[in-house]
Structure formats: C-alpha cells, structure tokens
C-alpha cells in the first residue's frame, strides 16, 4: 500500500514538473520568436499540452473525487477553445498578410480565393 502511494505521488509530481517545463518552453518561444505564426504555435502548445499534463498530474495527486472531475472538465474546455483561437489567429494572419510568402512556403497552385 505504501508502495502504491509512493508511485502515485511520484507520477503526479513528475507529470506536474513536465507540464511546468512545457510552460517554460512556451514562455521562451513566445518571447524568442518574431513571426506571429511561430509565436502562436508556441503559445498554443502551453495552452493545450502544458495545461493537460499539469492538470493530469494534479488529478493523480488529488485522487478520484469531484475536484478531479472539475479539472478534467477544464482540460476538455481548454482543448476545445485554445486550438480554435489559434486557428482564428492564423486564419486572420493568412488573410491579411500580403507578404506571407516571405515567411512560409505556400502551395503554388493555391489561388487567392482558395486560401480562405
């Protein structure tokens, strides 16, 4: 029994630390990159993967109860909301930036109308 408790504690703390590491990467990326799509990628990574891993760690530490259910709902909400907001930002960037080809490769056959 003691062993199981230790495994639970270790895995929970481990996941929490991994999540915090991903958050550090996110912060670093947001301030390091200059172009909006790169920064958006870094920010979205923290909002989905980072929060997912850290909250899973917290759920393991908390055990099987109502608080864990709420944390699971937070994960579901953020995994629904954050990719959509990233999608909107990238779509706005693609639509409004006239010099898009300087920053990323575009498929050549794609016309102006097919982009959006």
């Amino acid at each position, binding site marked *: 029994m003691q062993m199981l408790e230790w495994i639970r504690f270790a895995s929970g703390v481990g996941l929490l630390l991994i999540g915090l590491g991903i958050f550090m990467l996110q912060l670093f990326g947001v301030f390091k990159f200059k172009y909006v799509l790169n920064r958006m990628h870094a920010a979205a990574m923290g909002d989905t993967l980072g929060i997912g891993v850290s909250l899973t760690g917290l759920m393991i530490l908390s055990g099987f109860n109502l608080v864990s259910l709420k944390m699971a709902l937070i994960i579901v*909400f953020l995994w*629904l*909301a954050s990719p*959509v907001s990233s*999608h*909107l930002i990238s*779509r*706005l960037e693609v*639509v*409004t930036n006239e010099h898009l080809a300087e920053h990323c490769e575009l498929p050549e056959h794609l016309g102006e109308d097919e982009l*959006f």
Partner: protein
Amino acid sequence: MSKPIPEEEYRKKPLTRLLQWVGGEIDPFLETMETQKQQNQKPNERLIRKHRRDLDTVISMVHDQKHNKVYKLFRRFYKVASVVCCLALIAMLLTAVSYLPPVGAADNPSSNEVAAKYIEDGLQDTGAVNIVTGMILDYRAFDTFGESNVLFIATCTVLILLRSDKKKDKRQEEAEQRREQHYEPKDDSILQRITFLLFPIIVIYGIYVILNGHISPGGGFSGGAIIGAGLILYANAFGFEKLNRFFTEKTYKWISFVSLSFYCLAKSYSFFTGANHLESGIPLGEAGAILSSGLILPLNICVGLVVACTMYAFYTLFRKGGF
C-alpha cells in the same frame, strides 16, 4: 385661483422657455448672438512643404545610427538603466514585503472588530454562507449599487462617444461588408461548431455561478462576466444578425432599467425600515439552500444581468458603434 393667461405671455415665461430649450424646440442664442460664417481656409502650400522638409531632416538626423553619437550613447544608457530600474524596483518591493506582518497573525491591523463581527454574525444576519456575498450585498449593498450604476454610466459614456447613427446608403454598406468579410472572416465552420458546443455550457455555468453566489464563491459580477463572454463568443461566430434575434438594444435597455430600479427599490426599502440593511422583512430561510438569505439572491441576479449586458454592449459598441 389662477387666471388663464394669453398664449403670448405664456410663451415668454422663463419656465416655458427652459422647457422648450430642454426639449430642443428653440435655441436661445439664435437671434441674440452675433455670429459670423466661417471662411474657407486655403492651405499654405509653401509652409506645408517647409514643414515636411524640416521633418525629413530631423528624422534623417535622429535615425542616422552610424554617425549619431547621442543616439548610440542613449541606446547603451537605456539598456543599463532599464536593468538598474528593474533591479531597484524588485529590491524595493521585496524590502517592503519583508516588513509586512505575517499572514494571519492575531495582532494584524486588519483583524479588528469589523472582520470579527462579519465572521461571527454574518451567517445569522444575512443568511449567506459565503461571507463575501453577505458583505457586498447586505452590509454594504449601497456600495454595490453604486458599482452597478458605474457600469451602466460607463456604457452610456461609450454610447455617447462611439454611437454611429449615420444612415449609410446601400453601396457604402455593401463595400463595408465586403471589407469586413475580407479582414474578419466570418462563417468560420470550425468556430461555429465549437461555439455550438460551448455557448450553452458557458451560459449555464454563468447562471450557476450567479445563483450560487450566496452559497459558494462567485456571485453577480463573475457570473455576469461569464455570460457576457459567452454572448461575445456567439456574436463572433454567428454574426450580429443571429444574436439580434434574442438580444437587441431594446432588450439591453429593459434589462438594465429593470435590474437597476429593482435593486434601488429593494435596497431603499431596507434603508427605509431602519437603515441597517439587515431586517428586510423577507425570511432568511435555511442557510445553504438556493432559496435563502432574503434579498441577496435577487440582487445577485440583478447585478449579474447588468454586468453581462455591459460586457456585451462594450463589445458591440467598440466593434461597430451600435447594437
């Protein structure tokens, strides 16, 4: 008894003139003030060219980074000074924090008889398990009333500043729509599908937070903010036409008016019955139930409605200058 007076005399009375002026029927300065027509001003081409040349010279001298020694020095000084300022600020704040009394110590200045009174008698006086709600909506309800009115007045101010009443002709409107369509892509199917899933959940969660304000953490302000955010999400995904089917300017007006006047009347009543905000005559009920703690629940609903409407009104006013 009063005598009937002729119409000419009636028109000259100051009260009548004031009422007419308020109503916008007459302009008291119309024939008494000397006015002059504004003359068309001709732009002085020579002066404009000179200004432009001066500006170009200044800009080229300032941004000539290779030869401008002051600029170089300033860049270096700026880097050092920003680091020094940051460090000084951090040191100051940390020093100040280290002098603060420890959290929760018995002899802190904040733990005086006021807090003790709230904690000891709050549940009995207000019937709210959440002491904070009991405080802001019962002991200090007039303060919260002022806050709700501040929100309403802020909306009115933004309305005055940003309202665009101009009727556009058809071609202008179409061009604007096309521009908006181009820069702010609507009918995004991903966003619409996710909003379709999330919007009801967000609104239900907001209602839950409002209704449970006196039992658990939450209340009118936070719940109203959640509902307002949901409305903004809906407007973003489906456009204003769809939202206007259930939320128009008229709805906004009526919700704000009814909530604020109900709040005012309810709290005036308890003020009238002894000014202690406590005995409202409404039974407090069993602490912990949804229908308990007297006036706090309806007041929470009022505050929540006002906050939700204000958030949405701000968004729509800044977005397109009207509902």
